[in-house]
């Protein structure tokens, strides 16, 4: 429809058919597949680091008041900083290349993961802890066998958020950084005036984002919530 209005010349706003052709061609000559592989490698490394780092930070802030009062408020303020603004620093620290982008991806996911873990631990039902204590659990076993499993619903939500933030950070990082990821292809498309490539990649990004969220994280979340009794059994 917008295309039909002919507001912009074909060069700036290609027809849906051209975009579809670019998509098919991209997959046929393997350039999209390669870009996807490169991007996903960065994403997975960054995401894993973010989940582990965030979980550690979350446990720390939830367990000790001194940590909460110092790091806790810092995490909150860092959460509001878009992770791409770390890129200049990352470029200085890690030089141009993989590490800088992975760093930005990690930073993107870490804070929301830490916040979710901390709130998960703080919201563990008191009654469960009391019950466990009367059955002789205390100290570390109480923590690993009761408090951590009880906060799993929050952990999953944290992972889902971290994934979304990491994905955004990755795209932003790749636009500016180097390599062969999806973001870089997007920039090439701009540089060569190939708007159908740009649109094709945008569609790809949207599809991947929603597919991973819906297929993996949402399903996981629903299963966990139902098991933990926070969702009625009939809802699906």
């Amino acid at each position: 429809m917008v295309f039909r209005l002919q507001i912009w010349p074909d060069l700036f706003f290609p027809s849906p058919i051209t975009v579809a052709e670019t998509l098919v061609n991209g997959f046929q000559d393997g350039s999209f597949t390669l870009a996807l592989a490169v991007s996903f490698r960065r994403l997975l490394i960054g995401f894993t680091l973010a989940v582990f780092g965030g979980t550690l930070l979350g446990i720390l802030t939830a367990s000790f008041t001194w940590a909460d009062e110092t790091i806790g408020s810092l995490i909150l303020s860092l959460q509001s900083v878009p992770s791409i603004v770390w890129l200049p620093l990352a470029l200085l620290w890690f030089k141009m290349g993989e590490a800088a982008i992975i760093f930005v991806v990690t930073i993107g996911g870490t804070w929301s993961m830490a916040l979710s873990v901390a709130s998960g631990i703080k919201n563990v039902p008191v009654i469960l802890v009391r019950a466990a204590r009367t059955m002789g659990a205390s100290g570390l076993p109480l923590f690993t066998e009761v408090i951590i499993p009880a906060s799993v619903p929050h952990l999953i939500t944290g992972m889902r958020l971290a994934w979304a933030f990491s994905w955004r950070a990755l795209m932003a990082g790749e636009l500016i950084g180097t390599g062969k990821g999806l973001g870089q292809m997007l920039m090439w498309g701009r540089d060569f005036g190939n708007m159908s490539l740009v649109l094709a990649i945008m569609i790809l990004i949207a599809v991947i984002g929603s597919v991973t969220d819906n297929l993996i994280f949402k399903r996981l979340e629903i299963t966990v919530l139902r098991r933990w009794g926070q969702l009625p059994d009939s809802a699906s």
Partner: protein
Amino acid sequence: MLEIIQVGKTFTKNQKDLEVLSNINLQVPEGEFISLLGPSGCGKSTLLNMVAGLDKPSSGTITVSGKHVTCPGTDRVVVFQEAALFPWLTVLDNVCFGLKRLGLSKTETKQKASMTLKKVHLSKFLQAYPHELSGGMRQRVAIARALVMDPQILLMDEPFGALDEQTRLMLQKELEDIYLETKKTILFVTHNIREAVLLSDRIIVLGTRPGRIIKDLRVRAARPRQHNDSDLIYLENKIMDILQVEIEKVAKEELDDDYTLTKDSFPWDPDRDLGSGI
């Protein structure tokens, strides 16, 4: 033998002291089924939590077979009003949770747990998760989870309070059977007079503001008990009269001063026409 000596509990809220329990003295011999009965806010649950070691008394001491109670221990297991099962574990694993810490072998643990679950008639649901069970079944699991630890004292904090009437009657009956079979000391907290009378050997009636013992009653009726036993009904009415004064006291504090539980009752039929129809 559970001994509660001169125990008091004061909560501090907004720099104001609120005395919840004052000067509680109680001795519970082994194998007795004893109920703490009282209106809400009389501190009966607080007292149970202190025996469990989850709360600390402000004054006085609690001992179980001569040992000071300072922290929770497996000799005093609690069944709460909400079953408080771990949702990520199966029924069997929930019951195994405390056993694992006692240093038994894995097969022994599993065997003991399934045997106890059989006692509460849940053999068919060993691999089910708590969210798949009804409220009554969850409470059965909670009871099994406590029984399997073989505690010296079983503490029950309104265990049937959240259940519907039919399920409650059924579980009361089964609890009596379990008591007759195991002869455990059971400390049972409830606000349900009928439940206390039906189940207990001894009933401690607590008053409010501050919580204190106002009556120590024995129930001398043969077990297994029947709901329509005239002795039990007589006792129930007696406790009702004692508690009426207490309930009215609380109501007067919370509602207006002129509140009374029993409205002025007329010694005649209100529909009587006083002869005006002649």
